[in-house]
C-alpha cells in the first residue's frame, strides 16, 4: 500500500474528484474479482460440488462486508496499538466518519479508502476456499470466514498497510497484497487442510475439472478486476505510480501465462487451458506486491519466474500427500512469496520509492526486509488458521459426513444441483451426477 511518509506539502489536501472516482471504480473492479474467483474455482471442481465452491466465495461478500463495517476497518486501519492492531472508535460502524473527511494525507474520502480496502478483505478469505473443495460444512466455513477475518486478516492488514504496523514501519514493500492477501490466504489454506485432511478418494479417483470454460471465464474476470486491485492500491494517480503498476500487471501476467504453458508443453506434452488460466493467476499474484517497485522488464522476469515455479509447485501436493485441492498453496502462497522476495532483487529505485534491490546496486537490505514480512505473515497465518480449524472441527465439525461428500456436497449442504442433466449425460458426468433426488426433497422438506 502507498507509503504516506512523503508529506512535503504542509497545506491540507483537497478532495480530488478524479482520484475519488478512480478509487470507486477500482473498488467495484476488486469486488468483481470475488465472483470471478468463484467461477475460477467452481469450474475446477467436479460437477457435484460446483455450487458449494461458488458459494464459499460468494458468502464472503456478505459476512466480511458486515464485519468490516462493524469493526474490521477499525482493526486494520485505526490508530495503531502496539504495532499489532488498530483501533479508532469513530470507525466502529463507520459512525464517526464524516462523508467529506479525507483519508490521511490523501485526496480521497475515508469512505472511498474504506470501501476499497473492504473488497480486499472480502477476497482474501475467499481465496482459501479453493484448498477446501468438496468437503467442508457450509456453516463451519461461514464461521471460519468470520473468525479468520477477525483474527488473521484484519491484524495482518494492519501490520502491512496500517500506519504504525510493524511491517509497515520496517519498510516491507507490499504494494497491493502479496503478503497481506496471497501469502496470508495460501498459508491459511495450508494450515486448514493439514487439520481437516484430504478429500475422499484423493490421488485415487479422477478429480478433473468439470468446466474449463468456467475456469477461463473466472481467470478473465480476475485479470480484469486485478487492475483495480493493483493500480488502485496507490490510492490515486497524481504521480504515475498507479499507472506503472497497471502496466506491470499486464506485462507480468502475460509473461507468467506463457512461462506456464511452455513448461507444460515440454513436461506434459500439451498447452492446456487450465495451464493458461493458472499461469495468468500466478503472474497476477506475483506482480501484486512488486509491480510498483520494478520496471516493465523486471515485470517480465518476475512474471516468468512465477509462472514457471508455480507450475512446478502445484505437483508437490501429490508428493507430500496434502490435498490442496485447487492449488491455493501452489499458486497463491508460492506466487506471493516469489513476488514479495523478488522485490529485493528487482526494485529499480524509480517506482514507488527510491529503494533499490540487488540487481540495481541496492544490496540485499530490502531482500531481508521482504523475508521478515513474508515469513512472519506465513507463520502467523498458518498457525492461527490451523488452530481455528482445529477448534471448529472439535466443536461443530469442519467436514460433511463421508456419504454426503461422495454423493456430492451440493445436494447435502445447498439442496440444489448445478446443472440439469435429466437429458442424456456424457460418460464422466454419469458417474458424478448426485444420485438421490430423494435426499434432495428430504432436505427441502426438513
Amino acid at each position, binding site marked *: 500500500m502507498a507509503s504516506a511518509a512523503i508529506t512535503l506539502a504542509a497545506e491540507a489536501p483537497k478532495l480530488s474528484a478524479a482520484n475519488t472516482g478512480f478509487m470507486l471504480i477500482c473498488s467495484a473492479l476488486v469486488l468483481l474479482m470475488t465472483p470471478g474467483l468463484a467461477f475460477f474455482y467452481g469450474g475446477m471442481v467436479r460437477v457435484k460440488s460446483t455450487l458449494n465452491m461458488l458459494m464459499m466465495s460468494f458468502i464472503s461478500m456478505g459476512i466480511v462486508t458486515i464485519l468490516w463495517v462493524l469493526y474490521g476497518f477499525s482493526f486494520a486501519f485505526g490508530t495503531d496499538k502496539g504495532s499489532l492492531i488498530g483501533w479508532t472508535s469513530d470507525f466502529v460502524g463507520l459512525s464517526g466518519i464524516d462523508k467529506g473527511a479525507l483519508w490521511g494525507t490523501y485526496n480521497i474520502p475515508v469512505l472511498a479508502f474504506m470501501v476499497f480496502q473492504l473488497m480486499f478483505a472480502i477476497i482474501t478469505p475467499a481465496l482459501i476456499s479453493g484448498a477446501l473443495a468438496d468437503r467442508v460444512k457450509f456453516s463451519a466455513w461461514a464461521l471460519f470466514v468470520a473468525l479468520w477475518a477477525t483474527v488473521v486478516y484484519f491484524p495482518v492488514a494492519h501490520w502491512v498497510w496500517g500506519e504504525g504496523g510493524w511491517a509497515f514501519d520496517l519498510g516491507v514493500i507490499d504494494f497491493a497484497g502479496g503478503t497481506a492477501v496471497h501469502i496470508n490466504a495460501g498459508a491459511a489454506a495450508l494450515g486448514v487442510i493439514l487439520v481437516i485432511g484430504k478429500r475422499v478418494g484423493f490421488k485415487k479417483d*479422477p478429480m478433473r475439472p468439470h468446466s474449463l470454460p468456467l475456469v477461463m471465464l473466472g481467470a478473465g474476470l480476475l485479470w480484469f478486476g486485478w487492475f483495480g486491485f493493483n493500480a488502485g492500491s496507490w490510492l490515486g494517480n497524481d504521480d504515475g505510480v498507479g499507472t506503472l503498476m497497471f502496466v506491470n500487471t499486464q506485462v507480468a501476467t502475460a509473461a507468467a501465462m506463457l512461462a506456464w504453458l511452455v513448461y507444460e508443453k515440454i513436461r506434459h506434452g500439451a498447452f492446456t487451458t487450465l495451464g493458461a488460466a493458472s499461469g495468468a493467476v500466478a503472474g497476477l499474484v506475483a506482480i501484486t506486491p512488486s509491480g510498483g517497485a520494478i520496471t516493465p522488464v523486471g515485470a517480465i522476469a518476475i512474471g516468468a519466474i512465477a509462472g514457471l515455479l508455480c507450475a512446478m509447485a502445484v505437483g508437490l501436493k501429490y508428493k507430500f500427500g496434502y490435498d490442496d485441492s485447487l492449488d491455493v498453496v501452489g499458486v497463491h502462497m508460492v506466487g506471493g512469496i516469489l513476488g514479495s522476495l523478488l522485490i529485493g532483487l528487482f526494485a529499480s529505485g524509480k517506482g514507488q520509492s527510491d529503494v533499490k534491490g540487488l540487481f540495481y546496486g541496492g544490496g540485499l537490505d530490502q531482500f531481508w526486509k521482504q523475508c521478515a514480512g513474508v515469513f512472519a505473515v506465513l507463520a502467523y497465518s498458518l498457525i492461527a488458521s490451523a488452530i481455528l480449524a482445529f477448534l471448529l472441527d472439535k466443536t461443530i465439525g469442519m467436514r460433511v459426513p463421508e456419504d454426503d461428500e461422495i454423493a456430492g456436497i451440493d445436494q447435502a449442504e445447498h439442496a440444489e444441483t448445478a446443472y440439469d442433466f435429466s437429458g442424456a449425460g456424457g460418460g464422466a458426468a454419469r458417474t458424478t451426477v448426485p444420485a438421490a433426488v430423494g435426499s434432495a426433497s428430504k432436505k427441502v422438506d426438513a
Partner: protein
Amino acid sequence: MKLITAVVKPHRLDEIKEALQAFGVHGLTVTEASGYGRQRGHTEVYRGAEYTVDLVPKIRIEVLAEDDDAEGLIDVIVKAARTGKIGDGKVWSVPVETAVRVRTGERGPDAL
C-alpha cells in the same frame, strides 16, 4: 423380429441415420453412452496430474427390424459406422417377441 443394437463413434451418427433412411427404416432410438473396448480410453492432463479416462463417449442406436431385413440392416450400419480405426464399435442383434405401437395398438411387424 429383431432388435439391432449398435454402439458406435458419436460422429458417425449422421452417416448411419442417412444410410438407414435410405434403406427404408422409419424410426430408431439413439442414446448417449460411454464405454470402452480394445480401444481403451485416453489420457488427460490437468496441472500436471495425468488422468486416464477409461470410458469414451459412444452413441447407442437401437432399431427394430423384420427378420428378413435384419442382416441387410446390420451391413448398412457397419458400412456407415466404419472408419477403419480402433474404437469403431459393435453391432449385434437379438430376437424380439413382440412390439406394440402405442398410439394404435398395432402389434408385431405392423407396429414397425
